[in-house]
């Protein structure tokens, strides 16, 4: 594991899911870093909470994207994680939309390692939707995840609302169940290949594939594709001490570009090698 700069701000997951804006188009891109021993960071809260167990110091991150360059489709994320003994706690907040219509959620996550080979995690979310003139709807959900490590290969499984929740305040639709299966292969210290299959209830299977390559000690490059939403995305990450800045952009063949930026702070405690 590297000393200092193990946190990669560029963990993107291309999840173009029309049903909810809480799934960022560019960010949540932990599809790559999540399934890696050395590259997992606080953004894994968006993919598989179990990866949080690999963090060794407190960290925080913010992410912003403007979907298809439209202000009304802005997406914001705030993540924080803190190790407490052998367990890790995480906090996530997400906001999407504008004053006319917006969705928001807040989540509390917990993760721990069960030996060298297994990490498990859980997250509890509270999600609300608000539309001007129509009021609010809210619901609670749970996510469960596990990651298994074997040599250079890392496999993960995560289920969100596996038995589905109910929106409170109205007889609205249930929160859909979502299942993720991900794999990451640490080819070397410089290269990571990963893939994730995402299946949301009643929606098309999404296959997300990505790679991460370290161009220089302080510069990272990532790229990936999403099958369901026909997206191609790229990002560049720059490291400076405990900070990391990522610039990301994706392209949809009909809807155009979606830029995003992420800033991540890795914490003051120096990780022992």
């Amino acid at each position, binding site marked *: 594991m590297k000393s200092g700069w193990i946190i990669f701000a560029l963990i993107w997951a291309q999840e173009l899911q029309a049903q909810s804006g809480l799934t960022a188009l560019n960010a949540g891109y932990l599809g790559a870093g999540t399934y890696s021993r050395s590259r997992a960071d606080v953004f894994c809260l968006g993919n598989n909470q179990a990866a949080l167990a690999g963090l060794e110091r407190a960290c925080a991150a913010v992410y912003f994207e403007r979907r298809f360059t439209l202000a009304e489709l802005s997406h914001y994320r705030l993540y924080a994680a803190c190790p407490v003994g052998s367990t890790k706690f995480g906090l996530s907040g997400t906001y999407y939309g504008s004053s006319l219509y917006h969705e928001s959620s807040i989540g509390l996550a917990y993760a721990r390692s*069960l*030996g060298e*080979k*297994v990490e498990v995690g859980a997250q509890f979310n509270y999600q609300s939707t608000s539309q001007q003139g129509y009021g609010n709807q809210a619901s609670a959900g749970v996510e469960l995840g596990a990651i*298994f490590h*074997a*040599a*250079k*290969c890392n*496999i993960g*499984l995560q*289920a969100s609302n*596996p*038995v589905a929740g109910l929106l409170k305040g109205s007889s609205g639709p249930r929160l859909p*169940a979502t*299942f993720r*299966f991900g*794999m990451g292969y640490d080819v070397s210290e410089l290269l990571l290949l990963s893939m994730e*299959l995402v*299946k949301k*209830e*009643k929606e*098309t*299977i999404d296959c997300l594939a990505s790679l991460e390559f370290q161009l220089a000690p302080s510069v990272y490059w990532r790229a990936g594709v999403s099958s369901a939403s026909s997206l191609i995305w790229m990002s560049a990450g720059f490291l400076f001490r405990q900070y990391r800045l990522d610039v990301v952009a994706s392209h949809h063949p009909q809807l155009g570009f979606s830029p995003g930026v992420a800033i991540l702070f890795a914490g003051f405690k120096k990780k022992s090698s």
Partner: protein
Amino acid sequence: MLIACIILPAGIVNAQDLPPATEEQVENLSQQGNEEGIEDLNISSLTHYIEHRLNLNEAGETELASLQILTPQQIRQFLEYRRLLGSLVSIYELQAVPGWPVTLIRELLPYVQVSSVVPVTKDILARFRGGDHSFSARISATVERSRGYLENKYQGSNAKFLTRYRYQFKRLLQFGVSLEKDAGERLFNKRKPTGFDFISFHLFLRQLGRIACMALGDFTVSMGQGLIQWQGLSFKKGTDIVAVKRQAPVLAPYAGAGEFEFFRGIGLTVQHRAIEITGFLSLRNLDANIIRDSIGRALYFTSYQTSGNHRTSSEREDRHALRQMVGGGSLTFKSGRWKAGVNGIYIKNALDMQQDTKPYNLYTMTGDRWLNASIHYEWTVRSMHLFGEAAVDKLMRRAIIQGVLVSMDSRADLAILYRRLDAGYRSLFGNAFTVNSEPGNEEGLYLGINVRPATAWKLSLYADHYRFPWLKFGVDAPSRGRDYLVQVNYTPDRQTELYSRFRMSISQSSSSTAGVMKQLMTEKRVTWRIHFSKQLTRSFQYRNRVEASWFSREGADGQTGFLILADLVYKPLLKPFQLTGRLQYFETDGYDSRIYAYENDVLSSFSVPGFAGRGGRYYLLINYDLGRRISTWIRWGQIIYYQNQTLGSGYDEIRGNKKSEWKFQVRYLLKGEGRKLR
């Protein structure tokens, strides 16, 4: 120490798991609608070897081939090694056998052992003492009552009951009785004074001087490459190219629960030096759909009923309605690296067979008798093993299979198989390497390759192009198809296995629109599976699978399917119990995009349900050993469909959206060295 580390029993395969390639084949059988046959198609021979491990110092070519794990070249290499260097001293010596990689040895370990050779006693009666006695009973039932029970169409209870007794003295003597009642059948009535709907008995002896083996009662016969007769373990296309060649002893005891694929009578194999002669005679009553005249006399029959179910009045009318006599034999000559033989089978029914005059039935078997004959050969040349069979039927229609297995390199094996079966070729008990479930009306070329580029990696590929020269049920014109498979296995250590399987199948079927002329539509089915298995600790094993399917047909909307499951196996050391649990979610657009998933079940039972629609599935299997001789299994499983109001159809229709099943089995080992299964 290094050898010990490599050879120590792999954590991935425990006694109730099948090898991944075999698990795939069991799923393929289920997809072909052969659920009933899964239990009786001698897959239980593998569980038999778990309980009575094959002694590698005694095993011959036939026994090694029956494991369905070794290629003919690997068998020859082992036998040559044993001939030159003598009996093996320990299981670790297998690493010294040329051409046997560590991965192969790990796959074999659950089924083999190394022990001293016990002289064959000339006193046959002595074999009836000192062997293993095994008694097992199994009961299972679906909790929800289907329409057949609610409307009193099924006269019996919804419990399925199977009990078996078996005595085994090494591989020299085996006899046993099986009693079975299917769900919906009555346990006792006028026609069944013995109570059970199906009763099977077998007595099987080996090595009686010149008599290599003798079968009395129920037995199976397998000859050549299955063009005229095959009732042994038989697989179709899969990731393991070994499945291309049919390998099984000619005669084998039958102790299954299926009620069709076996013979009842006497069989004998005599061996004198290089010549082996087998003869058999069977006489039994089969289920068949009999057509009668106005005063009840039987005129002819239209089909065999192979399900074995006798629940309704019409099913009971068909029970044992047709008397059948079968006789046949095989003459084989072996010399060094080649073998050749002739085979024949004659079938005589008490009634003529007549089927509907549909175009696809043009070449169906008719009359009250049938005959098939064939010649077969095998020949090993350097690193190639050639094999084949040529057959004819009563009407002189022909069939031929020609294949070759090549060890191109220590890390690569190749299989090529060509088959050509006339449109009208028919055999009643044939089961060859064909797309059709019965041999006939097919021509095709198969190419398969297994490559091990590095220790932890294995690549399996096959391509199969075929055509059907005549019509088939649901296909109103000659048609074509092709199948492809790519699988990558990654096994970085003994505790971890990961594979990704991609399969594509393109075939043709008739459109469902009404009318005289039905066009052929191309169908395409694609599946992608990723399977992960890891031994987390010495007690816990975790398995995870994701599978997606895509189905398309010309002129119709496509369908997609998805399945994800997670298994946890808890098997603590030095404890007498094991727990296996599964959670699963599935979602498919319809029946055509259904997905099958193999499930752990009680000993000698195999469960491969297909999933269509949207819902969840879970099951829990507990195995508990009550002392050294008694083992119990209990299983509870449930499928919950999210949107259905009813499940199934016809008399099997269930009201509601759930289907629950429980199963209980107990096995008692009376004496002997029978090893408890965990």
